[in-house]
């Protein structure tokens, strides 16, 4: 019998304990308000803006419903930008998944706690320094007289680098002004976002499932395809959402390392900042959203979320 002790804190705790719905409501109100008003609200405003139009003479945004902006968007040049960005995002995502999976698997399955801690810090350490500094260091590393070219020269492979740079689309005068260089920098900056969710997903796959598969006659490759990969897929999808959407929206890496061909992020920046054409910038931003939506539907169709 403790009813004699009645502090205000205890009274409040009892009050809320007896009203679980109220307690839940109080906990959920701030995040829901944030998500609803700030997040979904601004997205909705973005979509609405894309149906306004910029008057070319006055430079004023005309707030009337029109498809004119979308018509402006549907030009071959803009289509090129969207395709280039989506292809880069897909390439970065696939490469990041291929690089991340073995490391994440090792961290989740084999690494001792000490080794795992070291690897975890190693994966996260780059995120502690400025993103801009890291992208500019890639510019230096990949420059014509940079460290990378020097290494290639020492290895006697300059001819190979030149051969690669001579390729259409991915090549360029040097790695620091080529699609390949952009790709490498993207891969570097987004890789942690792929490793962490895959590691978390693999962590949740009990070792006994892998043993059970081997026990039932499956060779390691079969176990990987039928058990490990399907169960890790939600993590791969989560990681790919990061790498894909971050690449789709980025404008720093392609402006520092790319050639003159634009990515969506750069186009948005140019329209919104330089030209003041907010409706066109908004319409451009809807493209990555549509691509991500289509990607998620596709992933669900593949059964990526069945194990959730």
């Amino acid at each position, binding site marked *: 019998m403790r009813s004699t002790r009645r502090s205000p804190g205890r009274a409040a705790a009892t009050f809320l304990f007896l009203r679980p719905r109220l307690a839940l409501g109080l906990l959920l109100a701030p995040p829901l308000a944030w998500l609803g008003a700030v997040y979904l609200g601004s997205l909705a405003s973005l979509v609405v803006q894309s149906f306004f139009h910029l008057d070319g003479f006055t430079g004023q945004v005309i707030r009337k419903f029109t498809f004119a902006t979308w018509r402006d968007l549907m030009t071959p040049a803009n289509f090129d930008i969207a395709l280039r960005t989506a292809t880069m995002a897909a390439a970065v995502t696939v490469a990041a998944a291929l690089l991340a999976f073995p490391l994440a698997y090792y961290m989740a399955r084999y690494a001792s706690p000490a080794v795992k801690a070291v690897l975890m810090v190693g994966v996260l350490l780059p995120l502690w320094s400025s993103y801009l500094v890291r992208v500019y260091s890639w510019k230096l590393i990949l420059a014509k007289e940079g460290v990378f070219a020097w290494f290639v020269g020492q290895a006697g492979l300059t001819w190979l680098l030149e051969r690669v740079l001579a390729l259409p689309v991915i090549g360029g005068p040097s790695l620091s002004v080529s699609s390949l260089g952009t790709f490498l920098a993207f891969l570097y900056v987004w890789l942690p976002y792929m490793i962490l969710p895959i590691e978390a997903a693999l962590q949740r796959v009990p070792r*006994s*499932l892998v043993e*059970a598969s*081997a026990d*039932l006659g*499956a060779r390691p490759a079969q176990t990987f395809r039928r058990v490990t990969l399907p169960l890790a897929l939600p993590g791969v999808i989560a990681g790919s959402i990061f790498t894909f959407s971050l690449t789709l929206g980025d404008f720093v890496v392609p402006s520092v390392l790319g050639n003159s061909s634009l990515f969506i992020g750069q186009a948005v920046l140019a329209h919104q900042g330089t030209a003041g054409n907010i409706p066109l910038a908004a319409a451009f931003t809807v493209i990555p959203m549509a691509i991500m939506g289509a990607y998620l539907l596709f992933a669900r169709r593949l*059964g990526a979320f069945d194990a959730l």
Partner: protein
Amino acid sequence: MAGERAPVVRFIGVSRHFGSLRAVDDVSLDIADGEFFSMLGPSGSGKTTCLRLIAGFDRPTSGRILLHGLDAERLPPFERDVNTVFQDYALFPHMTVEENVAYGLAIRNVPRAERRRRAGEMLELVRLPEVASRRPGQLSGGQRQRVALARALVNRPRVLLLDEPLGALDLKLRQQMQIELKAIQERLAITFVYVTHDQEEALAMSDRLAVFREGRVDQVGTPAEVYERPATPFVADFVGTSNLIEGRLAERLAGSPAPCTIRPEKIRIVAAAAPVAGGDGAVDGTIRDVVYLGSHTRYRVEVGEGVVLVVVELNRATTAVDAHAARGRPVRLAWAREHLRPVGGR
């Protein structure tokens, strides 16, 4: 049953050390084809490690394991004609029950129609045909256990390894599954190697059992041998309960200071100073404690020199009131002399 046919699993001086921990320490064992063999012991006694060595998930530090007469040293788990029922069932959560059961067949590229038929048969065998299209997450613990069994049996292994398969089930279900497992083992005539820490389970189901202690095997034998003639004080205590009698009391009761044991149910409580038949042993004491357990009652009787003997009596005519009234009463304990057995050293 044991020893007549060639052993299907043979341990020859097998050890498995993890650093300084001797999880399995110089174990030699023969498991005969078609027998129900239990590995019994407390947790950490090495029985599960032995099972993992047979399955191939782990490899011995030293010693040899022969499976069907062949050295298993270089055989990975997927090359061994052995299947396992895991303690946590290890069902694949992203597959249906039927896909789980048919997994071993799918791996062997058995055609789909035959896969379905044989998976169906196995689910029939474990009496769960109606859940084929469900996911493991939608099943109860007892159902998952049966699915795990069906999945492990679908490849028709010559040896089935079971790692505390009933550990997570409640008592009633466990007793029912014991009977079913035994029936399935007899019907399919395959070797079961059954790891458990539950001595009653091991006694009830096994043809033979090995009692593990600290990585070593203390005794191998039929349930009756292990129960009636425990080789060590540990076996006497772990398999069933036992009264260990040592020192002066042993000298008084058995005529020698060597340790001996007597089972609680072999001791009769008779009136103080009641006459004792010629061949029987007896000692006087006082009932200190009474635990009424429904079908039987457990008494703790102090027999002097601080020694307490546990006595179990069936409540044939005794009521709870009678049992509790006996507390503090001076009594005489009597037993047939052959039940007081010397135990080997260690």
